[in-house]
């Protein structure tokens, strides 16, 4: 009984200590913590909100790119401003972005030196208690304690797995350790106390790069970042092991890499189906946010094996033709962002002569980011009467060279057993 009482008292004292520490951190950091507002120029009202924090004495503020993306994409439509802990507003200018890691540097004008957040020099320990700061749902600045759970394994670009509530409006807010040093930046949530943070080293790199050379144009900076990231991704994919796995009577390539995850489905439970179908989908779990209507950086691969049950070849291929009509782009983009697709088709055979496909390749160009394209490839085997294999991939925001290298390897990899 005595032991139980001691345990309860210990728990209460720990919670009480954590609360006190959170309050202390909040009091200490509040002057450098801001709400970032995107203001619609025409109506004068805020269009979206997020959080941000000062990282230098001369008014440099870090936030998420997606918080100020409206201004970055349409500087004539929006303005950006901060709202500090005393309720004061001040206009901001956009200095630099890291669209891949969803970071942005903005600046307020200052007359005197201001307090700012220190960026941590080291990575937190797994299980270390962290404090996420921000302004959720425009309800006022809050501090949320949580735990550091290391980096997300299935992510091509590093993201910290944070066990704590990261809510809408807290995006761009800092996550600090007990020493009030920034170890991450709030960026996303999966709900149920699962949050994701951008590691502090990404912010440090952006800050140091900005100090070395200021970008001449945000669009050009974004284009370069998108190209570099996608080239790095495609190179990683091409240099990784492509395991050949069976799908029905076909062999499909599966890239053995943690950030490309595969899922499967079939209609084996439907005895009355006139065609038996097996489907495998592999994709990158993340994509790059450009604006509400424009995402890029995605990779998707889809394979579908179909076998006819008591169907004529003609009807079987007629049914398969419908599968082709369902092929869609892998990312969201609109008229202002991309051109319409340009396509070509041909009957092709890889060098191992293991399959004959009707192959279709389509591409569309980005309007604001030269030399970046979305590509789409789909192939259907046309050499077996009652069996067919569909192989399809989409890559968004990729350079011509990377796209064609990937296409070539993909086309050469598909075959029958």
């Amino acid at each position, binding site marked *: 009984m005595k032991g139980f009482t001691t345990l309860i008292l210990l728990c209460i004292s720990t919670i009480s200590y954590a609360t006190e520490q959170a309050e202390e951190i909040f009091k200490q950091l509040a002057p450098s913590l801001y709400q970032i507002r995107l203001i619609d120029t025409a109506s004068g009202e805020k269009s979206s909100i997020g959080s941000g924090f000062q990282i230098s004495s001369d008014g440099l503020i870090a936030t998420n790119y997606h918080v100020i993306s409206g201004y970055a994409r349409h500087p004539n439509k929006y303005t950006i401003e901060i709202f500090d802990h005393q309720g004061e507003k001040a206009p901001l200018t956009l200095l630099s972005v890291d669209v891949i890691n969803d970071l942005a540097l903005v600046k307020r004008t200052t007359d005197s030196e201001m307090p700012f957040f220190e960026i941590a020099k080291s990575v937190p320990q797994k299980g270390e208690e962290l404090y996420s700061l921000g302004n959720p749902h425009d309800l006022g600045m809050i501090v949320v304690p949580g735990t550091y759970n290391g980096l997300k394994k299935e992510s091509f670009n590093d993201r910290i797995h944070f066990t704590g509530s990261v809510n809408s409006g807290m995006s761009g807010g800092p996550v600090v350790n007990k020493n009030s040093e920034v170890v991450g930046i709030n960026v996303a949530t999966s709900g149920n106390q699962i949050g994701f943070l951008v590691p502090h080293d990404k912010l440090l790199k952006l800050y140091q790069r900005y100090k070395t050379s200021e970008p001449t144009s945000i669009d050009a900076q974004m284009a370069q970042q998108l190209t570099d990231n996608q080239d790095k991704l495609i190179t990683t994919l091409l240099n990784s092991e492509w395991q050949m796995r069976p799908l029905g009577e076909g062999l499909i390539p599966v890239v053995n890499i943690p950030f490309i995850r595969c899922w499967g489905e079939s209609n084996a439970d439907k005895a009355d189906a006139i065609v038996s179908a097996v489907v495998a989908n592999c994709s990158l779990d993340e994509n790059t946010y450009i604006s509400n209507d424009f995402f890029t950086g995605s990779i998707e691969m889809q394979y579908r094996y179909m076998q006819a049950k008591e169907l004529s070849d003609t009807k079987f291929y007629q049914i398969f033709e419908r599968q082709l009509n369902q092929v869609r*782009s892998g990312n969201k983009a609109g008229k202002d962002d991309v051109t319409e697709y340009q396509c070509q088709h041909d009957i*092709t055979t890889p060098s191992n002569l293991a399959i004959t496909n009707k192959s279709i390749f389509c591409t569309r160009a980005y309007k604001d980011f030269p030399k970046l394209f979305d590509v789409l490839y789909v192939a259907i085997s046309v050499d077996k009467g009652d069996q067919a294999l569909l192989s399809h991939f989409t890559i968004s925001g990729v350079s011509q060279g990377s796209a064609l290298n990937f296409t070539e390897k993909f086309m050469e990899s598909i075959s029958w057993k």
Partner: protein
Amino acid sequence: MEIIIEEITRGHKLIARHKFLQDNINIGRGYDNDIIMADPHICAQHLSLNFNGEHWVLNDEDTINGSFYEDEFSQKKLAVHQHIVHSGQVFLIGKSLMRVIFPDHPVPESICFSPFENILNFTRHPAFLTVSIFLFATVTGWLFNLHNPIEATFTGLLVPAIGMTLMFTLWPAGVALVSHLTKHEARFWGQLGICFVFFNLMWVSDFIENLVSFNASSQSIFGMIVSLLPITLAFCLFWLNCHIGFQMTKKRRTVVAACMILLLFGGSYLIQLSKKPEFSVRPAFNTTLMAPSYLFTSSNNVQDFIENSKALFTKAQEAAKEEK
């Protein structure tokens, strides 16, 4: 003295022809006339034609609405009053047109039987017509089954096959009706026979188009050439419809068929164009698939396919520059 009087339509199509041997002819609504008219704008005793030993003289009987003839030189309508008529001259009484023809009036040259006539007669033969319509209905039913995602029953296919066949019968029936209304011979069976021959040829044309579309690459020009096939077939069908149903010159028949092609294909192109969205996020590509037994073309290798794809990037980038 003999004389022929023709009742004609406003388009100068023949309604009735009367031949007289006497020297005096009366025209009017009265039952004692030589030609009894039904037009209520014509008087009981309206017009008389008298041979004076040298000429036929036309005289209006002081009627309410008068009688008129068309002057050959001025092309104007002039009132009839002791008018000497010429062979071929047209005159108007009430709202009816009549033409006077003398026995020595020249007739146009005889038209020899068209080489199509034998074929046309063959297509309307009951046995051929039955086979032709049955073939059309069978292909229609088979296509319904092919496009049905599940296996269809025979009775399930029978209804759309018969329905579609009846719907396609409306075209020859319509042409025959127009022929009849324009005072031509309807020749419904002839129209039906030739139409179903061409409807079946359209199925063949569809198959050839699909075959070429499946086998040819996007760099090939065969696809474009083959797309002219249905236009050519439709032109031939319209031309033959005119040939069977209407008496017109070859030139006019060609113009009418061309106009109908323009209306049909131009119209459907315009409809497609009007439905096309300003911007489409969906890729538009050739989706034609056929069973492997229809694959005749040799395969391209991956390297060549990649090389051909490079041109798309250039095209897309140019489009991006233009649209920005």
